């Protein structure tokens, strides 16, 4: 078995005895759905990671070119199925931009409540599943316990627990049921102390810190180069959040809301005065920071929802009546990015004047975030691969579409 490492083809098919090619996925407990990673390992050390995607491809974009924008809403649900409301919102805003459709004030606040609530649910799953990646099972169930309560709230609103199709072009399909806001506020009140529990079990846990701090460091430059967005970008210390920096059509939703972008500035986070301090071993851009940004974003969303509840109660207008199912689209194109829980989710629509878009396209944040895997995993240990991929918090439904 005379092989030279110089020729990559030979190595591919005639592996040296001390190197092993291992398939992690597409059916593996910790690859977050159907991600397949091909690992080149030398003992426990991973020298190369190649992600293979496409196992969940459902031709969503092609379907979008055969349906009207409102008919495509259920398909956007199935992209990032953990944050379906945010997907609905992204597509709805994009189509509204094309239609040049202005929402009543009340509808905007409703969207803020719903979108931020789903951000909490999504980050809870991300947090729990990350614990699972690191081998602790209980925080996962604690996270799901709280997420269930959000799903209960959503079920009251729209009847669905995962694929809502609630926010739609022109507003939302229904108004919030009576008494719902009170339940929502009560939920937020009881969520706060639970988050301290998560911090005790994960964020400040000695083993957790040892497993995540200083691991998979993503420099701000690299994060920008690879187009990383969302908590992955902010975890690297880049101060960008489309809720503040995005297009006017999107940021007007958040006009007048007091919130700070969760990013480390001068060694501390906006809210870390009452939350666990950054451990000494953590380096900006490592897995711990990405996790921590998500945890703080849950707090941030709680604040935003509380403000939104007050403003929704006093706002004028209605919840926004959806446009006709076969609303004629003006000729032209529109692209809009929103800040979904996993990063910047962009939707693109091109219309030739009929009610069915000529081109529908989604720009997935998870796809770009996943693309740094091979950089972060180079030379790490086998056990670090789930830890790094988990900290990127990708959803395969969104990558493959």
């Amino acid at each position, binding site marked *: 078995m005379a092989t030279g490492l110089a020729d990559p083809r030979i190595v591919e098919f005639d592996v040296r005895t001390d190197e092993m090619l291992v398939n992690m996925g597409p059916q593996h407990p910790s690859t977050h759905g159907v991600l397949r990673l091909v690992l080149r390992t030398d003992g*426990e050390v991973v020298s190369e990671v190649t992600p293979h995607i496409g196992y969940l491809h459902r031709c969503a974009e092609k379907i979008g070119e055969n349906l009207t924008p409102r008919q495509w809403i259920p398909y956007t649900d199935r992209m990032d199925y953990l944050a379906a409301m945010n997907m609905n919102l992204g597509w709805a805003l994009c189509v509204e931009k094309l239609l040049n459709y202005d929402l009543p004030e009340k509808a905007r606040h409703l969207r803020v409540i719903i979108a931020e609530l789903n951000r909490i649910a999504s980050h809870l799953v991300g947090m729990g599943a990350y614990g699972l990646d*690191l081998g602790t099972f209980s925080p996962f169930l*604690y996270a799901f316990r709280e997420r269930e309560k959000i799903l209960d709230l959503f079920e009251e609103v729209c009847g669905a627990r995962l694929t809502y199709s609630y926010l739609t072009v022109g507003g939302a399909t229904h108004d919030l049921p009576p008494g719902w806001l009170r339940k929502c506020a009560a939920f937020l009140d009881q969520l706060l102390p639970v988050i301290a529990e998560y911090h005790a079990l994960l964020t400040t846990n000695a*083993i957790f810190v040892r497993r995540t701090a200083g691991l998979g460091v993503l420099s701000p430059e690299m994060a920008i180069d690879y187009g990383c967005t969302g908590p992955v970008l902010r975890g690297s210390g880049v101060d960008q959040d489309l809720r503040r920096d995005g297009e006017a059509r999107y940021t007007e939703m958040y006009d007048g809301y007091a919130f700070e972008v969760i990013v480390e500035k001068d060694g501390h986070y906006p809210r870390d005065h009452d939350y666990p301090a950054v451990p000494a071993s953590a380096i900006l851009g490592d897995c711990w920071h990405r996790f921590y940004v998500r945890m703080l974003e849950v707090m941030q969303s709680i604040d935003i929802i509380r403000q939104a509840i007050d403003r929704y109660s006093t706002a004028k207008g209605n919840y926004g009546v959806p446009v006709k199912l076969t609303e004629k689209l003006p000729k032209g194109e529109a692209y809009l990015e929103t800040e979904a829980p996993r990063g910047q989710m962009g939707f693109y629509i091109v219309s030739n004047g009929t009610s069915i878009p000529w081109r529908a396209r989604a720009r997935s944040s998870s796809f770009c975030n996943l693309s740094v895997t091979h950089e972060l995993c180079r030379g790490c*240990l086998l*056990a670090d691969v789930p830890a790094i991929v988990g900290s990127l918090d990708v959803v395969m439904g969104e990558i493959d579409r």
Partner: protein
Amino acid sequence: VAESLTNLLGLGPPWQWVAYVLTALVQAFLLLNVVAVGALLFIWMERKVSGRIQDRLGPTRVGGRFGWLQTLADGIKLIAKEDLMPGGADPLLFKLAPYVSFCASFVAYLALPFSGFTGTDGTTYGWVAQPLNVGVFFILAVMGLEVFGVILGGYASASKWSLFGAMREAAQVVSYEVPMGLCVVVPVMICGTMDLVAIGNMQQGWFTNWLIFHDPFTFITFWVYFTCAMASVNRAPFDLAEAESELVAGFHTEYSGLRWSFFFMAEYGSMFAVSGLAAILFFGGWNGPIPITEILGLTYASAFDAWSWTGYVGNLLGLLNFLIKVVLFVTVMMWVRWTLPRLRIDQVMKTCLKYCTPLAAFMFLGVMVWMWYLPGGLLLKSPPLALVRESGAVAPVAIGKPDAQPSVDAQPSDDVTPGNDATPEAGATTGIHVPADIAQAEGR
């Protein structure tokens, strides 16, 4: 037992082996059931404990209110499963591996005493299948063999994940045996014997006699031992060999059905065994915190009336004590498992080599020095049993001097508990000269 059976059946000289074989079979059956039923209960307990920790109920239906028959139902399901073996597997090794693991964990019970007592003449008797004067050594050695099953299973599965798991287990278990052995030597050194029955009986009396309270060094040694024990039986946070988030299921990825359940039973069996060892070596074994049996007189007054019901009840209470302690340790292991994330392989090895081993070695030296100046321990001025004897209120029953050399002649021939052939070199005060030899034997 065999001798009484011979008398009972009236077997002549050429047929005595029948009695011995019968006895051996009965004992093996009983032990097997201890392991199997124990594993059954612990698996059920693990599900209940994890359920409660995770805001769930755990099993609730099978077998009545608490789902206590759930494991049995699962066992039946596992037995009824299709016998699967991967195409590229080595058939012989693949089939052999679970039994190697299970046997290793099961054989450890041979030398694990469940209860015991000291006769008036100072002889120790224990409820143990095979009294061994090297009981500690035997258990550690045999449980170390468990790793062979894992390596065989991982290698024979023809799966890369299994191989990873097996290699991890090999590295981990072999490393952790060093600090674990060092920790075990500490109580052995204090007691001057490797006979588990003798070590347990030496801690008779109030809980201050337990070796964990002997001196500060033993106190720390216990925690080091417990950590290493968790690592050596592959419990979280050291369950790297079957890390489901990394290695799918580690070494038993390709196993299913009954073979898989043998690995599982081995794991729970070893959990019980190391917990039992911890209870005997550090927590007084079958001696409760308050010597109720002695106060109530529920002991064997002398070795001659070993059949006396008072002694029997006392031993049963001792057994209960022992089981409570072991179950507590196992519960702590479960608690830890369902709370903590898993360590990485390099961190596991670092914990072993950089922390546990030096700490254990230091404790070993510390206890050695301590024994030189204060053999009785922190709270005691004299060897444990002597104190019990001196304060008559504690133990109304006369108990033999611990450092008296037991006389073989005094032992009755019709004794139920065959503790005779394991005469310990008892004597706490003589222990100081022993450790060097034992350390050599144990250090391996």
